[in-house]
Every structure is written in C-alpha cells, then in structure tokens.
C-alpha cells in the first residue's frame, strides 16, 4: 500500500507554512459557501410568507338577506388575518394600487363592493358569482405571483365553501318542511281510506238488504198475481152463481106463482092435469140446483184465501222494514225512496184486499156455508116434488107452502149470490191494482239492487285507490329527507366541498431547504473537488519522472483529494444538520454515500485535469454547468428541453441528486444503490483513464515543457 503513503506526503506539504494551511482550511470550508450558504438563505421561504407585505382592500358594503346582515367581506378579512399567509395591510384601493406599483406591496387583494350581495344572490332569483380580485406585479417579484395563485385558490375555496353551506342548509330546511307536510297528507289519506272502508261495508249491507227486499217483493208479486187470478175465477164463479140463483129464484117464483095459482084455483084437475109439467119443472129445478151446487164448489177455499192474506201481509211488512231502514233512518235518503214508497203503498193495498177477500171467503157471516145445504135441500125438495108430482094434487097445499118457502129461500139465495158477485168484482179490481203495484215495486227494487251493486263496485275501487294514495304518500314522505341540525351540518359540509383533496406526500420534505439540499450538496462537492485540484497536482511530477507505476501515480494523485473531499462533505453535512437543522432520514447511509460521491467526483476532476491540463479546469466547469442543468435538482428534468433530458442519464450528478433525495427524505433505497453503482463505475472508469494518462505523461512533449496556455 504505497499510494496512501504517497498521498499522505502530498497532504503534508500543506502543513508547511501559514498560507498553505489557510489554503487547506479554505478548501475544506469552500463547499459551505456553495451548499450551506445558499440553502441557509432559502431554507424555508414558504414558512415566512407572513413577512411579505401585501395590501388588502375590503370595499364590501355588505348585504341583507332574510332580515339578516351578511358581511362576507369582513369574514374573509378575519379569516385571512388569522391564517397568517401574508402580512396583510388593510388599505384603500388607491393606496394599494400605488403600493403595488412602487413595490411597497407584493400583491393586492380586493374584495369588491358588491361581494356580499353577490354571495347572497345564490339563494335569490338571479344568482351571481362573487369575485375576489388579486393583482400582482411581476416586476416586484415573480415568485410571489405564482405563490399567490396557490394561496388564493385556497382562500377562494374557503369562501365558496362557506357561502354554499348556508345555501344548502336552507334547501335542507325546506326539505324538512316538505317532508312534514307530505307526512300529514299521508295520514289524511289513511283516514280517508278508513272512511271509505266503512262506506264499502255499508254499501255491502245495503246490497244484501235490497237482495232480500227484491226477493220478498218477487214473492209478493207472484202472490198478488195468484190472488188476482183467484179473484177473477171467483168473480166468474160468483157471476155464474148469481145467474143461477136468479134463474132459481125466477123458477121458484114461477113455481110459486103456479103453485099459488093452482092452489088458489080450486081447479085441482088443473093440478092433476099439469102434474106432469110440475114434475118436469121440479126435475129442472133439481138439475139446476145440482149445477149450482157444483158451481158453489168452485169457490176458493177458506184456507187458500187465508194463506194469500198472510203472504201479502208479510210482503208488505218486509218492504215496510226495508223502506224504514233505507229511507227513513238514513241521513241522506237515496234517490229511489219515492218509488220505494209507492211500491210500499201498493203492497199494503194488496194486503188489505187479500184480507177482505179472506174475510169474505171465511163464511161471510155463515151465509155461504149454509148455501150448499140449502141447495141440497132445494134439490131434494125438487126431486121429492118430481117424485111426488103424481100425488101432488093431494099434497098441493103442503106443496104450496113448501113452494113458497122454496121461493122465498131461492130469492134470498139469489140476493146473496148477487151480493157475492158484487164483492168478488170489487175484490178483483182491487187485486188488479195491487198486482200492478207489486210489479212496479219489484222492478224498482231490481233497479235499486243493480244500483247498490254498482255502488259496491265503485266503493271497492275507491278503497283500492285510497290505499294506493296513502301508500304513495307514505313512500314519498319517507324519501323526502328530513335532517336534524347535526345531520344537516354534516351534509352541507360535504355538499359544499364534495371533492376533498387527500394530498399525502410520502417522504415529505419539511421545507424548501431540505427539498433542495440534494441538489446543492453535490454541487458544492464538485466545486470542492475542482478547487482541490487547483491546489493538488492531479499527477505527481516526480512520480511521472521516476517512471513509477501508472496506477500508483494515479491513486497518489486521487487519494489526497478524496481525503479532503470527505472532510469537506463532513463539514458541509455538519453545518447543514446542526446549523440549519437538516434532518437526515438515513444519516449513516448519507455519510457513506457522500464519501462515494466525493471519491467519484475527485476521480472525474482528476482525470480531466491530468488529461487536458489547464484546459481541463474549463472542462470541469463546463461539466459542472451541464450537470446542474440536467440533473433535475429543481424542476423535474422532463420540464427541460430535450437536450437536457438526453444528457440526464449520462452524468453522475443526476444519480447523486436522486440518491441523496432518497437518503435525506427517505424512500426506496433502490435509487441509492443505483447511484452507488453508477458512481463506482464513474470512479473506476475515471481512475483507469487517469492511470492511462499517467502512463502517457511519462513521455513529455515540447509542448509540455513550454505550454502555450497556463491557468
């Protein structure tokens, strides 16, 4: 290991004399000028924006909304003053303009006179956007202009958020009212549904009642019809009875006249002579009496008329009940009531007629009952007369008495039959009216039942419809939001600012200085190596003259500068960490990495100096500028023109910046390893080139001895 000892001898030169020592110290501290001094001045400019004087003009006149005073401008001013983004100076518009022009203020923010009015208009008929006015002057400072855009986009967003929150809050309150009213409507629809249900049940009952009534009236109608038919037969029979009885009476009259005449005339011969005629007449009478008897049997029986009377009375009663229930007890009598009333009247009439008929048939004071017996007696008398006609003459006297008795009896029968016939006629007429009434009643009840049927159908639809209405209103009420105050606050907060920006920087650099340290550290180390090779010879002349091995010569020229560079890096890092407060995510890694950077930079600078002599220093400076512009230390290299992008991957500082960023702020160490590999390759390559140069420079040229240029 001879090279380190040679390097130590090289360094020892600087221990001799005050000036070399001072030079060495200056060399060690030189990177501080480039790294620490610059970073110090820009360590945290964004944290000190509150030292930047800016003008704030609040011309807002305020506005009145719903009786409340709105001064949006004042609240913005308060917010800005609290936020300490800039040093706000409240001034007038003219002063602000002048101050911005002459550089007193870096920018001015103006809240216009109608700002509150415009904010308030968001809830009115013609909404307008409220506009804040920012003026900057790039002649004062360009950066402030771009910073202010960021700051004011925040201010604008906050003001917008506040304005829209109150707007949304009002909307939600309206929603709550709407919700309440819809709820009430839904409850009303529920009650309506209940009432319609009751009505529907009533309509059902009505229909059932009408069904029964119609059934009764049907029966009544057929009963009355039968009654009418019976009455017709009765009339006919009683007519024929009356005729017969009349004829009987006339016969008996003739008989009595003759008997009386015969009896009155003493001409018994006459009786004798006419005994056959008498017998003939008696036979006729007997025949007529038999016929009459037969007719009498045709009269309706008392049981039939009684049944008829009962049936019609029951029909009238049922109808009467229905009428009472539907018309009299109902609050609002249906339209068919008058008809029903007429039908009821007719039913009652027919019931009355039926009862009269019944009463008539039931014996009519026993006369009718005795009638057949009398007829039988008449016939048997006539037959006796017929039989006894031959002996009539002898029995004339008795016969005259009998005949007179018969005559008077026959007359009384004829009278009774006549009265019966009259009664039957009246009964028939009455029953005819009753039958028509019962038919009308039945038709009316049929219509009434159809109506009740339709009424029930309508009620079912009504009930369905009302339940749907109630359901729909309930659903609607559920869907209309009804928020309490807390919920409203939460929702208006989200709606006023629906898109949050979750900006989370991984491996965040706490300030500008930390962010740019990875750029300035390699810069200062490069400059350090560059100046170091102004003091140290890149290749030892005595070594070249002695023909020492080229590798050893190269290393002997490289190692002292690496040693100086490590000390430079240590001094720089110490000042950055303890002086400026730079925080290293990976301290040990950073130190090791900077040693490698120093070694690599020293090798490159050494080769350029060794190979190109004085011109090499200019090349070193050029290479520095190319690296600074293409390393992407400030803006991303992609924002630079293509030339720098093309250069970027071929220069070591690009990798140094990348690696240092990951060491200082933390992150994926892959970039660091890549940078290490690149730097090691650059160092090895540069050393190999230097060794080759050292070998070449063992042979001098005339130009070496008499250089045309010296720096």
């Amino acid at each position, binding site marked *: 290991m*001879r090279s380190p000892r040679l390097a130590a001898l090289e360094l020892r030169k600087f221990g*001799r004399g005050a000036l070399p020592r001072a030079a060495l110290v200056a060399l060690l501290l030189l990177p501080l000028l480039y790294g620490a001094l610059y970073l110090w001045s820009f360590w945290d400019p964004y944290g000190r924006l509150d030292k930047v004087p800016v003008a704030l003009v609040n011309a807002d006149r305020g506005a009145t909304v719903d009786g409340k005073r709105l001064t949006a401008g004042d609240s913005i001013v308060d917010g800005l003053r609290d936020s300490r983004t800039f040093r706000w100076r409240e001034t007038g518009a003219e002063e602000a303009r002048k101050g911005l022009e002459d550089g007193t203020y870096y920018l001015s923010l103006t809240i216009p006179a109608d700002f509150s009015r415009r904010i308030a208009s968001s809830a009115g008929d013609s909404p307008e956007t409220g506009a804040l006015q920012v003026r900057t002057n790039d002649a004062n400072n360009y950066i402030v202009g771009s910073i202010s855009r960021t700051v004011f986009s925040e201010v604008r967003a906050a003001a917008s958020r506040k304005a829209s929150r109150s707007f949304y809050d009002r909307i939600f309150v309206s929603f709550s009212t709407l919700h309440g009213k819809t709820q009430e409507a839904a409850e009303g629809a529920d009650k309506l549904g209940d009432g319609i249900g009751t009505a529907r049940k009533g309509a059902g009952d009505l229909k059932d009642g009408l069904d029964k009534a119609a059934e009764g009236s049907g029966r009544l109608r057929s009963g009355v019809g039968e009654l009418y038919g019976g009455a017709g037969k009765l009339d006919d029979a009683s007519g024929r009875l009356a005729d017969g009885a009349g004829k009987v009476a006339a016969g008996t009259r003739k008989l009595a006249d003759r008997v009386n005449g015969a009896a009155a005339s003493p001409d018994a011969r006459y009786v004798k002579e006419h005994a056959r005629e008498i017998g003939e007449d008696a036979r006729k009478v007997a025949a007529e009496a038999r016929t009459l008897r037969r007719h009498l049997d045709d009269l309706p029986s008392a049981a039939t008329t009684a049944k008829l009377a009962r049936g019609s009375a029951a029909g009238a009663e049922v109808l009467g009940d229905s009428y009472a229930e539907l018309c009299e007890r109902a609050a609002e009598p249906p339209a068919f009531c008058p008809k029903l009333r007429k039908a009821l009247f007719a039913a009652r009439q027919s019931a009355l007629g039926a009862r009269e008929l019944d009463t008539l048939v039931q014996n009519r004071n026993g006369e009718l009952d005795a009638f057949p017996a009398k007829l039988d007696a008449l016939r048997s008398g006539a037959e006796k007369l017929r039989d006894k006609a031959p002996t009539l003459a002898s029995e004339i006297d008795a016969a005259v008495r009998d005949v007179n008795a018969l005559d008077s009896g026959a007359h009384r029968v004829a009278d009774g039959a006549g009265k019966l016939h009259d009664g039957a006629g009246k009964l028939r007429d009455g029953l005819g009216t009753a039958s028509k009434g019962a038919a009308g009643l039945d038709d009316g009840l049929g219509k009434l039942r159809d109506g009740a049927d339709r009424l029930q159908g309508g009620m079912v639809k009504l009930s369905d419809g009302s339940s749907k209405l109630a359901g729909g209103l309930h659903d609607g009420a559920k869907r209309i939001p009804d928020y309490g105050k807390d919920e409203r606050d939460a929702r208006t907060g989200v709606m006023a600012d629906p898109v949050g920006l979750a900006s989370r920087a991984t491996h965040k650099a706490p300030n500008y200085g930390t962010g740019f340290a990875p750029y300035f550290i390699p810069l200062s180390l490069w400059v350090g190596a560059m100046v170091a090779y102004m003091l140290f010879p890149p290749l030892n002349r005595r070594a070249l003259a*002695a023909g*020492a*091995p080229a590798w050893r010569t190269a290393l002997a020229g490289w190692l002292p500068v690496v040693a100086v560079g490590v000390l430079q890096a240590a001094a720089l890092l110490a000042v950055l960490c303890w002086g400026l407060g730079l925080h290293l995510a990976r301290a040990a890694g950073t130190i090791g990495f900077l040693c490698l950077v120093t070694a690599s930079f020293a090798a490159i600078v050494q080769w350029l100096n060794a190979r190109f002599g004085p011109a090499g220093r200019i090349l070193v400076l050029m290479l520095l500028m190319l690296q600074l512009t293409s390393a992407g230390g400030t803006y991303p290299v992609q924002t630079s023109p293509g030339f720098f992008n093309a250069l970027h991957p071929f220069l070591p500082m690009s990798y140094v910046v990348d690696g240092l960023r990951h060491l200082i702020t933390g992150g994926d160490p892959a970039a660091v390893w890549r940078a290490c590999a690149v730097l090691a390759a650059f160092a090895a390559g540069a050393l190999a080139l230097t060794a080759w140069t050292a070998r070449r420079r063992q042979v001098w*040229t*005339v130009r070496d*001895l008499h250089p045309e240029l010296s720096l």
Partner: protein
Amino acid sequence: MDRTSLGAAVAARGLGVAGPRGWTFRAVDVAAAPGDLVAVEGPSGSGRTCLLLTLTGRMRPTAGTAEVGGLPLPRRMAAVRRITALAQIAGVCEPEGALSVGEHLRERVLLCRRFTGGPRALFRPPAEAAERAEAALATVGLDPDALPAGPRTLARDLGRPESLRLSLALALIGGPRLIAVDDADLKLGPADRADAWALLRSVAASGPTVLAVCGEAPEDADAVVTTHGKETADAFAAAGRA
C-alpha cells in the same frame, strides 16, 4: 545487483526533436561509453533539456537514431525509462520545496517499481529500500543529519549544492544505468561548480553513465555534446542543403 551494474552506453546519430515552433534540437550525435560523464553544452533554449528527455526515453525523437544501453529508441522507450533516471530537471523533476529531505527519500522509495530486477526482487527484504537510500546518500556525499534541521530540513531550505546532491541521491535510489542532470552548473560559483563536477564524476564512477547539461563543459568530461539554438540548427540545415 543493480547498483553494481554497468552504466549504459549511449549512441546517437542525427538525433532531432521538433516542437510546434520548429526544431528544438537537430542533428545531434552522441557517443558515450558506460560510466562516462557526458557534458551537454549549449546556450539556454538550445534544446538541451529535450535532448536529456529524449536520451532517457522520456521524449519521442523526431529524427535520427539512438541506442541507450543497447536499447533502440524510440522503439524501446519504456525499457529505456526503466534503466534511466532523471535528477533535477526544471519543470519536470525538481525537489518539492515544502517536503523535507527525509520525505523526499521516502517518497522516492515508494515510487520505485516493486518488481524490477526479475524474480529475485520478490524475495528482497523490504528493508533493502532504505539501505539503497543510505547507499545513494553515501554516493553523493549527503549526510541528512548534518543538515541544519537534520532529515527534516525542507528542500527549499537547501543550498544549491545540497539540492543537487539530493536530486542525484533520489535518482540513484532507482538503481539507474543512466542519470540525466539538468543545469548542473547553473547559479554556481566557480568553486561550487568544480565541486559539482567532482560530484558528478564520482557518481559516474559508481556505475551509471551521467548526462549533465551545463553552460560550459569541464575539461575532464568524457564526452561533450553540443547543442545549438534553433537558429543554429536552422543554419546548420541550410548549410547542409547548400
């Protein structure tokens, strides 16, 4: 051993080196036996230094032929460099003023090739380097302990004669067969000049051939090579053409 190896014979004919501004020297003939003290004479700027560098394999000749220790130039320049050494040559090889005498010696030892002299050198004990330094100092008659600050005396504090001795000692450490010395008599009084020549003679006597540049060649030089300035060389060339 290298120390006892014979000096290198030097033979050159029509040697010339051209620089960017024409010939530095031209048409130089040298003929020296091993162990000779060769004086290179000529005015300053007549290409004397370039001739030394050329003959030690450290500058490529433009014209002519040369042979050093049997090695042809420029074909075997690297080999010639190994058997030759430069003592003081301005602008090429001078003691560093800020380093002490002891440090110079140490540095020179460190600069020696490790594996010169064949496989035997591999087994040479390390201490021998120091021994060689001692021997070299003895040859040039320089006793570091006798200096004002001993071995720590800085080179810049040395007088001209001591500086020459130191340069020669440093050159001898490599065990060369040819030593080139520039400006051997520069800024020396007549007495010191005589001492210098005596020193060079003794070095030559110890083995290596010595090439010494001087303004004026001493009488006892084994060979004298004269270089002429550029104009002379040009005149020469013109004469030759004529």
